[in-house]
């Protein structure tokens, strides 16, 4: 039996490197064979390894942050229903419970136990976003039952054989079952490769006791995070941020407390849960809070549970950030994406060199549902990113996804798939918040309907009333705005568009950092030349007079 002290720094380093590589490879197999654009283009999924005690010790590196840490909680619920002794090689357990998982029904979690010499040694699991999950998710949903099918904890594979009852149940309730099951099958293949690789690594490195190695890895991650937290002064730092909300605005308040090597975030003072689908279940709240802290304190270590041991996240029960069943949760990113900016602004005075100003997020998207010319129905989602927040020592990049990480779909791909033309995709002048370092520019996207039949459009956009804030003297970015044929429309709406109608979206610009007075003349001239800033804005924001205007 391997003793814990026999893991040298060298061996841990190499094994860890191999484990991370293993999961990236597993993720890659999934992406290459997936059928959905959200998996392929947006990497809206995660693959994780947990030890026999259910501790997450490695996660695919390019996954979007909303999945951080949720898998061990889901595993706990799964083990309640199927204790370890009831699991066999080849079993795969499925669930999409929003309150035990990642916060909405579209995210389907699957977990497969890994056996070695007849003994359960670990779990491989993945969670992915299914574009449709049945039901009628919409901004008007009043509870989570409206939002689609809940798949209770069930075995979808029993010893490698399909459980046809569970599959039939799902097939009947989904609008696009082929796509969802294409992705589920792709994950089954990915697990096979992940498991073979894990066993090979354990054999190569002669590791008998994986749990002990995991403890070593988690311990090192924990120490790294603790060192980073301990390096900044103790204290309480708080801030709040306003959300556009619905009839009324919503508020998130956070208080970050640093004490020695511990860090806690508490969200007391946040608005109460509402009967609109923007409630963020605690798992999702924890994921985006932990993500922000990792980015600010310790961005370059691999992602595992150890990094989060020194961190406590709390939110009052019944609040927007810890809702009770059956509050609707479908569009919880409209709340969750505000957590990194409010945590960063709370920490701005403490660690001004490690944070960024507000980005033009929550990420915007639009759903188009209509008919192709041959009568076949289509439903298409398109994501649009806003400007990135300014950085402490440089301007924010234009149109860069944060805190999610969602790539844009190429214009030519989009137009090949649906009868809608994109007539403009361009950077908006003066959209980046002024500052010593300017916020990133946002974009204008225009879509023209060219099908015979009307197209139903659904949007739910934030940052229209409250634009992305600047930090440390920097100004806010421009707010977002939606138009149909040049007329403003509500940012949360659903409407039918007819042939030749043009819908236009201006996403929100990133916030600036530092006083605009400190901006260098060189940068102002560059902005004028590129058109990022107009003459009028240069004069207004930077008191800069161009030669022509003098």
């Amino acid at each position, binding site marked *: 039996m391997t003793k814990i002290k026999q893991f040298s720094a060298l061996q841990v380093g190499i094994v860890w*490197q191999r484990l991370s590589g293993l999961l990236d490879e597993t993720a890659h197999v999934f992406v290459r*064979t997936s059928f959905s654009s959200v998996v392929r283009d947006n990497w809206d999924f995660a693959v994780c390894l947990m030890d026999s005690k259910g501790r997450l010790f490695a996660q695919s590196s390019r996954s979007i942050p909303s999945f951080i840490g949720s898998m061990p909680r889901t595993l706990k619920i799964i083990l309640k229903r199927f204790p370890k002794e009831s699991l066999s090689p080849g079993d795969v357990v499925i669930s999409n419970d929003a309150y035990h998982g990642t916060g909405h029904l579209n995210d389907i979690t699957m977990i497969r136990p890994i056996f070695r010499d007849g003994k359960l040694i670990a779990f491989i699991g993945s969670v992915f976003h299914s574009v449709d999950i049945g039901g009628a998710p919409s901004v008007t949903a009043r509870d989570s039952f409206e939002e689609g099918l809940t798949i209770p904890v069930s075995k979808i594979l029993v010893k490698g054989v399909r459980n046809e009852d569970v599959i039939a149940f799902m097939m009947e309730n989904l609008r696009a079952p*082929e796509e969802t099951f294409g992705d589920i099958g792709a994950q089954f*293949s990915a697990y096979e490769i992940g498991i073979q690789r894990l066993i090979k690594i354990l054999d190569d490195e002669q590791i008998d006791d994986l749990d002990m190695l995991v403890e070593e890895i988690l311990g090192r991650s924990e120490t790294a995070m603790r060192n980073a937290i301990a390096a900044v002064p103790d204290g309480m730092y708080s801030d709040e941020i306003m959300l556009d909300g619905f009839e009324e605005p919503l508020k998130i308040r956070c208080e970050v407390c640093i004490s020695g090597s511990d860090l806690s975030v508490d969200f007391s003072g946040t608005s109460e849960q509402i009967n609109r689908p923007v409630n963020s279940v605690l798992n999702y709240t924890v994921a985006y809070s932990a993500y922000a802290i*990792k980015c600010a304190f310790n961005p*370059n270590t691999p992602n595992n549970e150890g990094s989060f041991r020194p961190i406590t996240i709390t939110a009052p029960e019944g609040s927007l950030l810890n809702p009770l069943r059956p509050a609707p949760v479908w569009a919880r990113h409209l709340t969750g994406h505000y957590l990194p900016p409010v945590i960063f602004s709370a920490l701005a005075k403490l660690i001004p060199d490690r944070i960024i100003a507000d980005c033009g997020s929550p990420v915007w998207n639009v759903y188009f549902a209509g008919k192709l010319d041959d009568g076949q129905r289509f439903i298409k989602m398109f994501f649009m990113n806003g400007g990135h927040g300014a950085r402490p020592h440089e301007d924010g990049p234009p149109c860069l996804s944060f805190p999610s990480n969602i790539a844009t779909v*190429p*214009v030519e791909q989009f137009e090949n798939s649906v009868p809608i033309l994109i007539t403009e995709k361009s950077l908006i002048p003066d959209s980046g918040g002024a500052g010593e370092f300017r916020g990133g520019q946002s974009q204008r996207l225009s879509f023209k309907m060219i099908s015979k039949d009307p197209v139903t459009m659904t949007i739910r956009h934030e940052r229209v009333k409250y634009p992305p804030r600047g930090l440390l003297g920097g100004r806010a970015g421009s707010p977002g705005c939606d138009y149909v044929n040049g007329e403003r429309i509500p940012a949360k709406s659903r409407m039918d568009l007819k042939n030749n109608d043009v819908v236009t979206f201006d996403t929100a610009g990133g916030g600036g950092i530092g006083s605009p007075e400190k901006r260098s003349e060189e940068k102002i001239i560059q902005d004028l030349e590129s*058109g990022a800033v107009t003459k009028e804005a240069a004069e207004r924001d930077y008191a800069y007079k161009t030669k022509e205007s003098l």
Partner: protein
Amino acid sequence: MSDGYRLGVDIGGTFTDLVMVDLHNGKLLDEKVLTTPDDPSLGVIEGVKKILEANNIHASKLKHIIHGTTLVANAIIERRGSKVALITSQGFRDIQEMGTESRYDTYDLFMKMPAPLVTRRWRFEVPERIGPDGQVITILDESKVIDVARAIASSDVDAVAVSLLHSYQNPNHERRIREILQHESPDIIVCISSDIMPEIGEYERTSTTICNAYVLPTFTRYLARLTNRFHKMGVNKDLYLMLSDGGTVHESTAAIYPIRLVQSGPAGGAQAAVAINKITDNKDNQGNILCFDMGGTTAKACLVEDGKPMHANEFEVARIFRGKKGSGIPLKIPVIEMIEIGAGGGSIARLDNLGLIQVGPESAGADPGPACYGLGGQKATVTDADLILGYLAADNFLGGDIQLDIEASKTAVKNTIAKPLGLSVVDAAWAIHETVNESMGQAAAIHALEKAKRITDYSMIPIGGAGPVHACNIALKLNLSLLICPPSAGVASALGFLVSPTSFTTLQGGVIPLSRLNFEAVNRQILSMEEQGRKLNTEARESTGGVNVEILASMRYIGQGYNVEVGISKKVLISKNIAAIQQLFEAVYLTQFGRIEPHMAVEIVSWRVVVSGPTPEIDLAVARTGAHSDDFSKGHRRIYFGPKTDFISTPVYERSKIEVGREFEGPAIFEERESTIVVPPGSHSFVDKALNLIINLPVKSGTELS
């Protein structure tokens, strides 16, 4: 055999390598000179003169010159290309600045994005629009084009890239814009995207077109200088250039598509591995090769299967942030597929915030270089570790041209790694060596897995300066049992040029479901692509041997985003056999992903036609003159092979003096001018008829990776 010589010249970052074959007797001659970065043609000419003089050959005897260069890649990496303007569809001039809108690093708030090569001021929009089916939605506003053309004509712009939406379906607007531009300024260089890379995806197609325009003036000026210098020394032969996909083309074709040269040197290395593998007479070898090329700052790995390197149709150039995928400029060009790892001899070892050793991607470069160069480097590098472990000899680096300082290495390793970790200097050096080998082995294994291959089915051919030092250790990690170490591994790329066929790939995009394939249109298109390929592959016309035409379709299930390449014969296309195409696709898909989706419909995304001439044969079995000397021993040196064996007194041999057929038991060290082969205990090796050192390693069996 005919009279005269064929010459391969590869300009690398540090050295310009030359390999020449005597067409009369098939013998190879090598030369290596320093690269002259300010005007690389000077180095080439110096090298050519040197190799001719050293072998007493008259310049007129050069029959054929094949050339590869880092010039194209470096122009982009160092941003030293020409001033380019972009003309694009109304409403879309900012596409290059927005890119994919995604972050390539999830946690780093400050990751860098590459700045666009064309600033916004020089990106022009013109009213026009073509739909996804190629139909004109808005006709081109020529008066606006004339305005833009005049603005460009009166500026200092050297070249114009034109990239309109859906031009891969209908190139007419782009062609008309080119005419107008050339009418307004007859000398201006214009690259249109429907010519450079007619494939779906506006961001990548446009960036490829811009890069082509960006390097074109520099490249053609360089070619003119080089040709001029050759003429002055009495060489009047046309030049051939090595492309990134392993084919060579006449200089006139290279001058139209210079971006396709971006990886010419590494492509040569892969082609050399193919040739070396052909001649080895080892029975265990199944023709599957892992070509492992490790130099000063990076290592590259390429898989060769059944004598063919793997291909890809995309490449990322000029990564600006820790070599990370996504931090560079995307190109759509045919390339030999390789993975690149930011780990070479100069890579720096450091401790991360977990107290674990990380090696690279930061490199000490050539100046100050590794601590042992004695040029002021304080940081421990891979080369320093290799010196401490005894793999390198202090007085034999580059044939003794550089005297290495082992004490400086020990100090650097001690201060930066050993002391903080409480390890001995030797243990720390071993840890550095192991860590870098693990990175490379893992990257190679992942690469193989991505291709649904088992790395254990491969033999390794190590090339590059540092490749042979690390090769055996990496092979042991990967459970590879066989290595083929060619002589003159340091000039392998230039040798590769001499064994590459002339070849040109044409491409045409256009997404269509297989069930709705219009065979008349496809056959017409393939024919015209073949004609274009024959036109651009001038050698294919001159060649007495047969011309090979390969037709490839990029295919996938409808709804997927990644394609597989399916070879389809003309016969199948002419007989309009949809079922046969479906079967061909399924066979490839099954091999790559282990399953098929019988209920899903299939689509074709693009077509590729490769027109290639015959592959030039060099009989490597007679190409190198073996020495007949018993005087190859250079004594013994203490070499560290890991904590189990500690330092072992190991025989050191002079590689160039060992004759064919000689056998050795490991451990052993084989020294050459530019590299050293480190052979571990328990191995058996011999010198084959082509003077390759064939190493059989003692690998474990039964733990294969599938």
